[in-house]
């Protein structure tokens, strides 16, 4: 099974601060994804990437940026964090032609005060 790791696992940030969430996968998957999960909303796609150097907007990209500097790494960046961005964030990776086969990381719990 694909190995997807996230760091940090927990983060407390202040409103207006910059937050970077990191994701690493070791199975050479082309696609990577960032989701947030909130009670009442389920999992929602923020940004995704088809490969190194590419980033695409998902369903709720406002307030977030993404960076894919290499095949293995995909970062989610909150330039000016707000309390509404308090959530659990999941990273996933998958094969280019199999969007249904996504392998998830353990999640990062972000609290913005």
């Amino acid at each position, binding site marked *: 099974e694909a190995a997807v790791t996230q760091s940090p696992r927990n983060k407390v940030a202040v409103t207006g601060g910059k937050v970077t969430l990191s994701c690493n996968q070791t199975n050479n998957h082309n*696609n990577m*994804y960032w*989701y947030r999960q909130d009670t*009442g*909303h*389920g*999992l*929602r*796609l923020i940004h*995704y990437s*088809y490969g190194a150097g590419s980033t695409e907007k*998902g369903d709720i990209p406002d307030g977030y940026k993404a960076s894919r500097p290499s095949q293995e790494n995909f970062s989610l960046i909150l330039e000016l964090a707000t309390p509404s961005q308090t959530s*659990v964030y*999941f990273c*996933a990776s998958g094969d*280019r032609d199999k*969007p*249904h*086969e*996504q*392998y*998830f*990381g*353990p*999640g990062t*719990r972000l609290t913005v005060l």
Partner: protein
Amino acid sequence: EQQVQQSPASLVLQEAENAELQCSFSIFTNQVQWFYQRPGGRLVSLLYNPSGTKQSGRLTSTTVIKERRSSLHISSSQITDSGTYLCAPDTNAYKVIFGKGTHLHVLP
């Protein structure tokens, strides 16, 4: 508009009972994947199938693409089956869309 709907939202069973989870979707899709998640835990893929019936151990998924629905049957439930089950049909844009899930609680 909610593109993926799951029912029931929550379900309580006695151990050894069977469970039937439903998923309907308004988007065009080629296949549906079911995920399992423990509270606060990562998602784990259970089954995916383009159509028809697919089984893995005590889990059976039945998908009828033309009718835009899928179901997950859990037989002989165990306490360790407790958690959230998420339905995720894929789209043509290299991504999947998740339902809000069914929260299953299996009692001893």
